[in-house]
């Protein structure tokens, strides 16, 4: 019988198989950041071990770094210690680091792909759950904890139980004005936050094939939000086109050899998945969350649900709790929900395509009174590219704040946080209680909806806005 894409990549990385043991997988690329690595490096030191393959390891500073005054010492002493610890560890163990101020600094999941290090058929791990992002290239990529970070540093391998496989097939075409973020949010609302648990998911079908690499990364990024171990997409001409010419992409005869292998990375026609989910792309509309997990979402055209709408008692209780936390009344139209803050950024929607989409909406317009809009590029390279295209001017003219690169308000580890009771429309990936700041309330949205919301002052799609007097070209 044929094999799935995930099974092929898995098989090509098995170092050792034994009865009653998990497979020992070889790791092609290990990404490291300041928050989940200090204890792992300490573990190496305590055991007298080194980093086995520093040449397969890359570190950047992203989670707690400030997005203003990046040329000055970090003001928060605890954050500064954590960042300095990473710098010291990378120096001591010979790991390549892109620190604050470097052109290749940024969110690990933006930096890996833009350097061409994330390649089809590789295994990629990082002490961060959104490592699933790299699956967009047909890589098997998943988040790990600090003990596993130490394990990979010491051995370049990881013992892993074999996951089950699932297919999410998205037939048809996404309607105009509907993005990959809308697709993934509507998928999660359908399958639930635990729907993918124990599975590696392959996204396939006409709508997935039509997506850009940036949009595919958005889809794969959110795999963890419905519990999947990893999410991947078979590499194709879109993938090869993105990689060609990137700093670490193969060249010459190596490129040809790599492409020949990459082209074999497809699910065989007679392969079977353990589970399958089918979606109709044409039915997807702009989608937003109302609650405190990414599965609690509705179409932007919908209303805040009532706990009574849920059959399952657990879902009903969770809805009651979420409505209380979010301070929302059932039946309220989503478009009537006013927000204080709009955040455009994160490893979900902080790439150049997202910034272009948001800039196009706010161009010639202005953010609503008393509303704060933060635009945080996913990497310094993205920031530089956006500035070369004049996007920073567009955002600033609209009254938005143009920031340095990092995770920023996605998780609120740096000073970019929501105040208690503040409400945000955010292009990030988690609307958990307190995620963006204690007492803060988060609605997950696409870059397009975020930008339109910034202008309207309440949840909105670009089509809801009156024509701008000075529309930007394209």
């Amino acid at each position, binding site marked *: 019988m044929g094999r799935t894409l995930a099974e092929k990549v898995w098989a090509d990385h098995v170092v050792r198989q034994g009865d009653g043991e998990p497979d020992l997988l070889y790791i092609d690329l290990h990404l490291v950041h300041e928050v989940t690595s200090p204890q792992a490096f300490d573990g190496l030191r305590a055991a007298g071990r080194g980093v086995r393959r520093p040449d397969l390891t890359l570190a950047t500073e992203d989670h707690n770094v400030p997005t203003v005054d990046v040329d000055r010492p970090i003001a928060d002493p605890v954050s500064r210690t954590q960042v300095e610890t990473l710098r010291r560890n990378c120096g001591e163990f010979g790991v390549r680091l892109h620190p604050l101020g470097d052109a290749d600094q940024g969110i690990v999941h933006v930096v890996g792909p833009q350097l061409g290090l994330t390649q089809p058929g590789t295994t990629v791990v990082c002490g961060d759950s959104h490592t699933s992002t790299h699956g967009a290239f047909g890589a098997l990529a998943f988040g790990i904890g600090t003990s*596993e970070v130490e394990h990979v540093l010491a051995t370049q391998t990881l013992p892993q139980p074999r996951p089950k496989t699932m297919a999410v097939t998205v037939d048809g075409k996404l309607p105009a004005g509907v993005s990959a973020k809308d697709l993934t949010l509507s998928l999660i609302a359908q399958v639930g936050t635990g729907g993918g648990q124990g599975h590696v998911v392959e996204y396939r079908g006409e709508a997935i094939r039509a997506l850009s690499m940036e949009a595919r990364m958005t889809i794969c990024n959110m795999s963890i939000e419905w519990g999947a171990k990893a999410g991947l997409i078979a590499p194709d001409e879109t993938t090869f086109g993105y990689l060609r010419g990137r700093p670490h992409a193969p060249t010459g005869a190596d490129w040809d050899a790599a492409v020949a292998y990459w082209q074999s990375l497809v699910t065989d026609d007679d392969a079977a998945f353990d589970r399958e989910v089918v979606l109709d792309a044409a039915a997807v509309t702009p989608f937003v969350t109302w609650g405190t997990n990414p599965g609690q979402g509705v179409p932007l055209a919908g209303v805040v649900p009532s706990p009574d709408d849920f059959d399952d008692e657990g879902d009903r209780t969770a809805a009651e709790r979420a409505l209380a936390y979010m301070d929302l009344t059932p039946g309220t139209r989503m478009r009537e929900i006013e927000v204080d803050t709009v955040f455009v950024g994160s490893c979900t929607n902080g790439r150049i395509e997202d910034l272009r989409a948001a800039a196009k909406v706010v161009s010639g317009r202005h953010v609503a009174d008393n509303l704060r809009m933060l635009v945080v590029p996913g990497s310094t390279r993205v920031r530089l590219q956006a500035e070369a295209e004049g996007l920073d001017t567009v955002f600033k003219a609209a009254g938005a704040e143009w920031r340095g690169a990092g995770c920023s308000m996605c998780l609120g580890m740096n000073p970019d946080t929501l105040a208690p009771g503040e409400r945000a429309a955010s292009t990030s990936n988690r609307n958990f209680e307190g995620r963006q700041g204690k007492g803060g309330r988060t609605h997950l949205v696409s870059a397009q909806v975020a930008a339109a919301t910034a202008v309207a002052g309440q949840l909105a799609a670009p089509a809801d806005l009156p024509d701008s007097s000075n529309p930007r070209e394209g």
Partner: protein
Amino acid sequence: MDAFTQHSGVAAALRRSNVDTDQIIPAAYLKRVTRTGFADGLFAAWRSDPGFVLNRPEAAGASILVAGQDFGTGSSREHAVWALQDYGFRVVLASRFGDIFRSNAGKAGLLAAEVDAKVVAAIWDLLEREPRMTVTVDLAERTLLAGVDADRVQDSFDIDDYTRWRLLHGLDDIDITLSHAAEVEAFEASRPVWKPMTMPARTAG
């Protein structure tokens, strides 16, 4: 890692589902560079409510947390496991765990035991009637026992064989892998030359 064979302790009922790791320990508490000292961050936002289970006298000294479905979803932060351990928990019972949390627990020596949702509900009910009830978890037998006599809940729990074996013997994963060094070297020798390497560094600039 210390071996884990059996544990008896006071149980606390966390009657919530979808407890993500941001709730277990908010990001603001992740800045420490040590492996200990995270007890203050455990359920930090919820603990500001005096009625929260861990603030009630019946949960004092609890070492077994009995939680709703999908405990430990979201972020990969192992700090969530460390915070539970620092606070005094040795065992978490739930009907489903986030994959990364469950894996982290197994590495750090916290027993994440998967039980039927009905068992969770039964233990919650028992705790209503008998606060400070002791639960005994036996990893060798994969069984749990809560309460006494006719009122007791006795059942089995799930944990994968390999994690169970490692916990029972207190084995370190890295030592096990290093014992297979020859196989790792053989695999490395077979890797295609065009596979990406981070060094020497190449950048676009």
